[in-house]
């Protein structure tokens, strides 16, 4: 599905969005008012320039449109893989972007992300997973690594990984795993203005004061241990 089709379906009341170097920036009209629309398209491999274009747009929005909701469209194949990018500390630019999303939240901007096609590792961490809530379209690819590459790195037979993946959201690629693990709120069968409005309304009513993903993962049966261990560490008697 083309970006324009996605935008038309999500924002039938109108959108004005610019795409440059695979980076989306702009705004759109919804029943909740004008929202900022930003993100990446065409399976962007996030590099310094992309990360800095997104962070600059977030800072502009915080300064010029206090409280305006942020809608992230996520289509990233991960981070750019090159020596020149690493030379300038690519993790630093991705951290800066993540920090800008975090600042917007602290300044009262609700945010949601929608994975439209691909969401992979570092690219996903830097903005999609920083939003208050994440959603994914039904055919979206969400993963750290595909099972063949994982098999090469871990030296575990591909067949064995495929077999285990069938029952384990812990490492099976796919948006459904991320729902069960608590990181994605829901899967949308198609880009839909109605679903977006509902998600924005839910976000506006109850902006999460804290990160609820461990609890969601526990309730949905995908992540059985994390919530309990974090609570134990938080509450354990210690020291002096």
């Amino acid at each position: 599905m083309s970006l324009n089709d996605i935008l038309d379906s999500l924002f039938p009341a109108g959108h004005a969005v610019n795409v440059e170097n695979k980076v989306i920036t702009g705004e759109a009209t919804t029943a909740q008012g004008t929202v900022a629309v930003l993100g990446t398209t065409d399976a962007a491999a996030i590099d310094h320039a992309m990360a800095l274009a997104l962070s600059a747009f977030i800072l502009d929005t915080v300064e010029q449109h206090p409280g305006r909701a942020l809608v992230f469209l996520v289509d990233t194949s991960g981070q750019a893989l090159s020596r020149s990018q690493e030379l300038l500390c690519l993790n630093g630019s991705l951290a800066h972007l993540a920090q800008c999303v975090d600042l917007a939240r602290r300044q009262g901007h609700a945010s949601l992300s929608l994975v439209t096609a691909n969401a992979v590792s570092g690219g996903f961490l830097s903005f999609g997973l920083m939003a208050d809530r994440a959603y994914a379209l039904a055919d979206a690819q969400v993963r750290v690594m595909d099972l063949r590459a994982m098999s090469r790195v871990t030296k575990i037979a591909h067949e064995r990984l495929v077999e285990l993946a069938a029952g384990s959201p812990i490492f099976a690629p796919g948006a459904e795993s991320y729902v069960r693990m608590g990181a994605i709120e829901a899967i949308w069968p198609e880009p839909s203005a109605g679903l977006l409005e509902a998600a924005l309304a839910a976000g506006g009513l109850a902006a999460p004061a804290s990160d609820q993903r461990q609890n969601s993962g526990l309730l949905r049966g995908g992540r059985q241990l994390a919530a309990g261990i974090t609570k134990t560490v938080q509450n354990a008697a210690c020291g002096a």
Partner: protein
Amino acid sequence: MIASLAARHSWFEATARARLAGLLDPGSFSEILPPAESNPSPHLALLDLPGAFDDGVVVCYGQLGKRPIFAIAQEGQFMGGAVGEIHGAKIVGMLRRAAQEKPAAVLFLIDSGGVRLHEANAGLIAISEIMRAVLDARAAGVPVIALVGGSCGAFGGMGIVAKLCSAIVISEEGRLALSGPEVIETVAGVEEFDSKDRALVWRVTGGKHRYLMGDCAMLVEDDIAAFRSGATEFLAGWSEPVPSVAHLRAGQQTLENRLAAYASYRDGLQVWAALGVAEPESVPLLDRDALVALKEGLPT
């Protein structure tokens, strides 16, 4: 010189527990969820892989110069310090506790390749939770100091986490980046990045380069006592800023400026020359004190 070398206790070669023993005030280490009270990762067991009772990370309460601090220490010798479900949840718990109890600091001894692939989704989501929790602790006024000098460096999502901390204290042996050189070589070819060229790897990801560029606040010797005094010295002069647009605007400008100036470079030697280092090829040979003096003499 020989006596001081003999007294040195390498951070790079030490285990996470040995680093903590030398970092914190003697006798102050108090572990939370010690191995006797926890279980190895069931996800590794499912793959017939050996686990560790602490799942490769030690979280503790302690003191630094008699001030109460929390510490998180990743064990690079277990699964490359990589983040799985339990490992990540322990770190998140300690950071959230810090936001509530407000110790003088959290010392985050990072030694990790990032996500543990055997628990890939759990690891990625945990790193996202760690990112949020680091920023929450900092917003509560608690400095989070990353200490990087272990054999696994700070890579992948843990490279991002390191850069979200208040500051990074790194040794020459420390490495900090996103994708590992091996990954780049596999995907983009040996011409792009020869991961076996150790000198090149250090000129691109190593502690001296990150310090010269300003990505790390302090460069210290590969010595546990040096990390201790570095962290102490940094904290003495630091008060955690309130998150603000102005602060991030300044960061944005710095990153845009250096991208405009250095985007075409592929080797630390080029960056160092552009920074004003008269003899960039001498940088790898300089000892820590000489390099710090060089950095302090550079035009700003």
